[in-house]
C-alpha cells in the first residue's frame, strides 16, 4: 500500500486512542474529586503533567483550576493534543484515506467531529462532564469496533492496530508515572496495603480496576505498577500492547517472529524482550519514574522507526509525526 496511506491510517488510530485516553484521565479525576472536595484544586496540575504539556498550558493560563484544565485538554484547538484537536486530526487523516477505510468508519468519525464542534458539546462538558467524557470514550470504542469489524484485516488494518497499541502503551505509562510520583513520596511504603482511593482511580482510568482485583485482591502500589506494566493478558498493560504491536508488525512484513528484517522489528523485539526479562522489584529498586521515562522515550523512537521504515522511503518526504513531548515532570 501507499506509504502515505499507511502513515495516515496509523496516525488516525493513534489520535483516536489519544483522545480516548485524555477523556479517561479527566473522567477519573472528576470522579475522584467527588470523594475529596477539599482538595479540589490540587488535582488538575497532575492531569496536565500526564500529557507532558505543562509549558503549553502555561502559555495562556497560570492557574490549574478545573475549568481551565478541562478547556485546555478538551476544546483548545491551539493545543494539538486536546480531544477536539485529536479528533479533528484523526478525521483529516481519515478524509485523506476515505477510499481505504470503510464508510462506516468514516461516517462515524465525521459525526464524532461534527458533534464535538457543536456549542452543545461545550455546554454538556461543563454541566454534565461525567456523561460527556463517557461519550467520548464510547465513541472511541465504537470506532475501534468498526475498525475491527468492517475493514479487512490486511496490511492497512495491521498498521492501524500498531498505532492503537503504541499510543495506548504510551498513555498507560504516563498515567502510572504521574500518579506514582504524586502518591508515593516514600519508597518503603511500596508493599504496604494502603486502601487509597487514589490508587483505585489509577486503575480505573485504565479500566483496570476489576481485572486487577481478580489478579491481586489487595491494592498495593507495587502490584498496581506491576499489573499496568507487565500483565500478560490485560489489554491496556504496556507489555500486552507491545506484544500485540509486534504481532501486527510481523504480519505486515511477513517475517517470522524471532527473526528481524528491519529496524522497526529490531526495536520492537528488543523492547518486548526487555519487558519480559524485567520484574517489578527491579524496576522499583532502580526507580519507577526513570524506568517509565525511558519507556516513553523508546516508544517515541519506535514511532520514528516505523515512520522511516514504512512511511517515507524518500528522505525528503515530509511526515506528520506528532509524538508527545517527553518532559513529564522532573522532580
Amino acid at each position, binding site marked *: *500500500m*501507499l*506509504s*502515505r496511506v*499507511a502513515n495516515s491510517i496509523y496516525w488516525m488510530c493513534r489520535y483516536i486512542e489519544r483522545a480516548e485516553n485524555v477523556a479517561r484521565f479527566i473522567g477519573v479525576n472528576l470522579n475522584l474529586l467527588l470523594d475529596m472536595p477539599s482538595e479540589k484544586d490540587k488535582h488538575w496540575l497532575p492531569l496536565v503533567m500526564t500529557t507532558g504539556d505543562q509549558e503549553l498550558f502555561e502559555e495562556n493560563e497560570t492557574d490549574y483550576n478545573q475549568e481551565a484544565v478541562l478547556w485546555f485538554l478538551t476544546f483548545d484547538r491551539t493545543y494539538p493534543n486536546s480531544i477536539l484537536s485529536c479528533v479533528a486530526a484523526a478525521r*483529516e487523516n481519515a*478524509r*485523506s484515506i*476515505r*477510499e481505504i477505510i470503510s*464508510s462506516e468508519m*468514516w*461516517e462515524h468519525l*465525521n*459525526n464524532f467531529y*461534527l458533534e464535538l464542534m457543536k456549542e452543545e458539546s461545550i455546554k454538556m462538558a461543563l454541566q454534565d462532564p461525567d456523561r460527556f467524557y463517557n461519550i467520548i470514550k464510547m465513541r472511541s470504542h465504537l470506532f475501534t469496533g468498526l475498525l475491527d469489524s468492517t475493514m479487512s484485516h490486511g*496490511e492497512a488494518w495491521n*498498521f492501524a492496530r500498531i498505532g492503537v497499541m503504541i499510543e495506548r502503551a504510551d498513555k498507560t505509562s504516563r498515567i502510572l508515572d504521574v500518579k506514582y510520583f504524586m502518591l508515593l513520596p516514600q519508597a518503603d511504603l511500596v508493599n504496604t496495603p494502603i486502601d487509597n482511593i487514589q490508587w483505585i482511580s489509577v486503575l480505573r482510568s485504565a479500566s483496570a480496576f476489576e481485572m486487577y482485583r481478580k489478579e491481586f485482591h489487595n491494592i498495593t502500589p507495587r502490584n498496581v505498577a506491576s499489573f499496568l506494566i507487565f500483565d500478560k493478558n490485560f489489554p491496556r498493560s504496556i507489555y500486552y500492547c507491545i506484544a500485540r504491536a509486534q504481532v501486527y508488525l510481523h504480519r*505486515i512484513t511477513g517475517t517470522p517472529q524471532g527473526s528481524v528484517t528491519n529496524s522497526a522489528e529490531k526495536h520492537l523485539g528488543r523492547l518486548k524482550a526487555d519487558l519480559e526479562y524485567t520484574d517489578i522489584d527491579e524496576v522499583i529498586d532502580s526507580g519507577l519514574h526513570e524506568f517509565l521515562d525511558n519507556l516513553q522515550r523508546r516508544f517515541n523512537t519506535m514511532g520514528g522507526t516505523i515512520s522511516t521504515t*514504512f*512511511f*517515507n*522511503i*524518500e528522505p525528503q*518526504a515530509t511526515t506528520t509525526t506528532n509524538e508527545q513531548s517527553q518532559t513529564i515532570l522532573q522532580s
Partner: protein
Amino acid sequence: MEIFRNDDHEGFYDELIDEKGIPRPGVELLVEKINSLPEGDLTLRQKAAEALLLKMGITFNVYGKDEGAEKIFPFDLIPRIIPSNEWEKIEAGLKQRIFALNEFIQDIYNDKKILKDNVVPEDLILSSRTYRKECEGFTPPRGIWCHVTGTDLVRGGDGCFYVLEDNLRCPSGVSYVLENRQVLKRTFPQLFEKSRVRQVDDYPGKLLEMLEYLAPDEMQSPTIGVLTPGMYNSAYFEHSFLSQQMGVELVEGRDLVVSDGFVHMLTTRGLKRIDVLYRRIDDDFIDPSVFRPDSLLGVKGLMDVYKKGRIAMANAPGTGIADDKVIYAYVPEIIKYYTGEEAILPNVPTYICREEKDRAYVLDHIEELVVKAANESGGYGMLIGPHSTKAEREQFTELIIANPRNYIAQPTLSLSRVPTIVGNRIEGRHVDLRPYILFGKDIYVQPGGLTRVALKKGSLVVNSSQGGGSKDTWVLLPHQS
C-alpha cells in the same frame, strides 16, 4: 404545497410544467406524488437529505473563505426530468462534438490541417494559454485526448438546448450525480420505479473500462490511479469517491516518483510501477520540470515518461486547448470540418472580441451581454451585463480593450427553470445541465448528468462556488410500445 400547479413562468421555459400549467410528458407521476404529500413533508424530506449528505461528509471547500469552511453542495429534492426523445438528440450531439474535438486536438498538435485551411486562425491557437508546445508531434495512447468531458448545456427560452461550454480538462461533479441519485432513490422509491428512470450507476465501471483501455496492449492488469491535488482541493471528495468506486489507487504527487524511466508509487514495500493516471490536476501543475516549476502537486519527470509511452494519462496534457472559450466559438465549423456534418447541438451565439466588428458591438452593448475570459472556470472572470454595476462594466471594458484575444461575449440567455424548494414553497430556479462523456473504445454519454441550479432568485450563476446547488437528473426510458 399547492405551488406545483403554479403556471406563472415569468416568461421562462419550465422543465417540468408547460405554459398552461400542465405537467410535461413523464412528469405527471412526480407532480401527483409531491402534491399528495402532507403539508411540510417535502421540507422535512429535504432537511433529512441534507443531514444525510453532511453526515456522509459529502462536502466541498470554498476558496477564499475561512480556512476549513466546509459546505455540503446544496441539493434540491425535486428532480429535473428529460424525456427520452430529447435525450437521444443530446446524446447524438455530444458524441458528434466530442469526436470532432478529439480530431481537432490531434490535428493541431500534428498536421495542423485545419489551420492551413484557415478554418481556425493559427495565431489564436498559438496564443492560447492552454496550448502546449510540449505536445507537438505527439499522439497519445489510442489517439484519444479528451477521455472525460463534462459539457455544459443550457435550454433557452425557445425550448432548445445549446452548448454553453466544453469542459475538457478536469470536469468535476459526476460524484454528485451518483450521490444525488442514491438520496432520491431513498426519498421517493416507488415513484422512482414507476417513472422508468435510466440508471447512472455504471459510470465508475465505464470510467475504469476506459482507463484500462489506455494501458499498453500486453498489460494484463494495469495499475491505475486517480491523481488528486490532495484533501484540501474542492473536489477531493469526488477524487476519493471515484477511486473507491473503481477500486484503484488514489495518489498525490508526493506519492509518485520517476525512476528507471517509469512512474512509481512509494509504497510500504518499496516502489511499485503505475501504468495509467486519471489525473485531476491541471496541465500547469502536473510536472514541475516541464510546466510550472513552483508546482508542489505534480511529479517531476512525468511528462517525459508519458511522451515515451510508458504511462497513460486521462485527459491528455494539451487537451485544454479545446477548452479555450474563444476556440469554442469555432466548434460548429470544427465539427463540420472533421465530420462533414452540421452540429447537432448548436452553440450559443458568440461575439469574439479579437474581431474588430464583434468587439465594437460588445463594448457598445456590454450591459446586455455576458462577457467571459477565455480560460477561467467556476464562474470566475465573468461579467453578467444586466446584473452588473457600472464599475464592473468599466473594469471589463478596460480588460477587453487591453487584451481582446482573451474575451468573448454572449447574449444573456433566459435559462430554463425547474421548480425548486425554497423555504416551504416551491419556486422556479434557473438550471443548466452537465452531461459526462467518456471516450475510450467507444464514446459513452452518461444518461442525465448534473443539473446545477442557481438557488438565488433570478440568478443565472449555477456554480457551486457561487451559491449554486444541484438536482438529480432523470432521463426516462422510451415508452414501451
